[in-house]
């Protein structure tokens, strides 16, 4: 394919992105093992997974920063697999602070426009508009070393958006920030992404971030896409053992299954598809699906209670020494103290099971 600059999604209409059977080897390591994802125009896909699962490799391949050994990437229907980075028109925000230290915030944002031959007056106006969008117009004359980490990442976002990219790529842009700023900025990124309507690929290892921001969340493990689904579906109906264990907190409670239902703590509940084990298994039950009731004859004993603001989490030991974590509203935790005997029950939500 010839190297041509792609038309940006200047109208606010995102473009579709297709990963078609991507493969990438680093020596003996198969970092991408046939990754295929269809991203709808304007959609924000969060790629979630542990370190080394291939999520950043996929993002870098889309940005042209890393080469593929096999497979195709289509953006807006065009095959861009062989197009060099500087011709792809992708806006990228990196994990590390990547503002050019020798340029002010305004010059950083205007740099991509300067490369596109926009005259100085027009690019300054555009840069200031974009800085306004991220709420940092007053910082326009500051250098990166005069700004906080959160401000630098906002400027980096403005710089990526100023060129009206076809796709926005976010490579763990919040991981260097403290928790409070991270939460603020993720909401801001999501607000701007919806406002601009740009197709976005967001890579993170933070489940909360992925579930909070993604229209769909793709969970990756060892170069493979385990499951891609809307956050609620991913959380409630994991399709693989890895997803069930990786996403959210999970209890492993001894149970028995016949392949259709599973009996956990004396209650029969539906089994999620994807689990092939029979007989004695371990059910993967979310803490919020465990009900705890204080009772003198209860089979469990409370080990510890953690107050989490509006929520409360209790650790309960079963007679077989299995430790179960239950999560409830703080107002429902009255009477739960270490040493108290409790009854445990499981909500009738479908669960995933794994071999004992």
């Amino acid at each position, binding site marked *: 394919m010839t190297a041509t600059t792609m038309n940006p999604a200047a109208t606010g209409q995102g473009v579709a992105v297709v990963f078609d059977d991507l493969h990438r080897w680093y020596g003996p390591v198969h970092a991408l093992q046939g990754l295929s994802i269809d991203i709808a125009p304007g959609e924000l896909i969060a790629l979630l997974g542990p370190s080394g699962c291939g999520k950043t490799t996929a993002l870098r391949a889309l940005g042209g920063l890393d080469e593929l050994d096999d497979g195709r990437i289509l953006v807006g229907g065009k095959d861009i697999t062989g197009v060099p980075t*500087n011709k792809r028109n992708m806006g990228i925000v990196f994990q590390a602070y990547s503002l*050019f230290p020798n340029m002010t915030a305004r010059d950083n944002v205007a740099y991509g426009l300067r490369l596109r031959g926009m005259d100085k007056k027009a690019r300054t106006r555009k840069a200031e508009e974009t800085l306004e969008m991220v709420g940092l117009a007053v910082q326009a004359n500051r250098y990166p070393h005069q700004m*906080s980490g959160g401000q630098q990442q906002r400027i980096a976002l403005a710089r990526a958006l100023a060129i009206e990219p076809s796709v926005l790529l976010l490579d763990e842009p919040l991981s260097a920030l403290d928790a409070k700023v991270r939460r603020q900025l993720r909401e801001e990124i999501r607000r701007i992404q919806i406002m601009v309507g740009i197709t976005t690929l967001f890579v993170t290892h933070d489940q909360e971030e992925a579930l909070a921001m993604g229209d769909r969340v793709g969970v990756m493990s060892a170069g493979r896409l385990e499951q891609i689904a809307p956050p609620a579906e991913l959380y409630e109906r994991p399709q693989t053992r890895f997803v069930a264990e990786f996403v959210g907190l999970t209890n492993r409670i001894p149970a028995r299954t016949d392949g259709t239902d599973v009996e956990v703590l004396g209650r029969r509940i539906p089994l999620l598809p994807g689990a092939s084990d029979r007989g004695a298994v371990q059910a993967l039950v979310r803490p919020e699906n465990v009900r705890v009731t204080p009772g003198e004859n209860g089979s469990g004993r409370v080990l510890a209670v953690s107050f989490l603001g509006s929520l409360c989490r209790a650790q309960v030991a079963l007679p077989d020494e299995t430790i179960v974590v239950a999560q409830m509203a703080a107002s429902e935790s009255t009477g739960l103290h270490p040493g108290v005997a409790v009854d445990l029950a499981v909500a009738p939500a479908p669960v995933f099971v794994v071999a004992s």
Partner: protein
Amino acid sequence: MSGSVNTQMGAAAPEGGALLAKPPRGRRSRRASRRQRFVRYLILILVVGYLIAPLFASLEFATRGDFDRTTKTYGRTLDAFAAILSYPNLVESIIVTLQIAALTVVGMLLLLVPTMVWTVVRVPRMRRVVEFLCLLPLAIPAIVIVVGIAPIYRWLGQNLGAVGASPLTLTLINIILVLPYSYRALDSDLRGLDTATLADAARSLGAGWPRTIFQVIVPNIRGGILSSSVLAIALVLGEFTISSLLSFNTVQVVINLVGQRDAYVAVAVSLAALVFAFVLLFAISRFAPGAGSRTQRAVEEPAA
């Protein structure tokens, strides 16, 4: 419970205050402190003396006038310094040496900066190899380099006419000689910068490699470029062995020749060259763009 903690802290306070008070200083500790100060000053005086004494002796020698038998002292004159200009070879050699220094700096930067940036960004596993190659001239004696490179200079002289025979061709070997020092200066700046991420960011915004290097990377390693240039100039201004063995008349070679005829002028030239080099390097390091560096301050996140 907290009450008991407070009580304990209150009770502990006077003792803590006593611990913070200065211990009484005995006569012995005062004597030790005086001795330490004396040793410190002595070391300082010795080091400064070691550096200054030869310069002072040179100045004293180069400014000697006629010997007065009655007072048994020398008169003072600047004749030796004035005589520098009367040696045409000397002035010419100074100009040539400065040209070689300038060409060496340009050549070194053109060779090293793109190579090092490319290595860091694209082939980081080659970093060790590049470092090894750049440090190699430190390990090879000058005479070995000359023996190895002499046939090339002979070929240049025979086949490229005046250009090949020009002392400016020393630039080629000087670029090699300055590599270890210049590499170190540039490397420390590149390590302090997240070069790979900056390059990725520039390229994602539409910059090709030349723009990435010259508009984004180079302005951020100006300190390293300046340091490597200063080191290169200093090395070229002081290089004697190779120029002499290859029979090129650089300033150091000519100073040596003049010294065989007129020791006063030779010492005057050496001093003048030293002062000139010092002023030049000071001016470059003080006033050249990029002499100051931007460092990341700890800027707090603004309140929401």
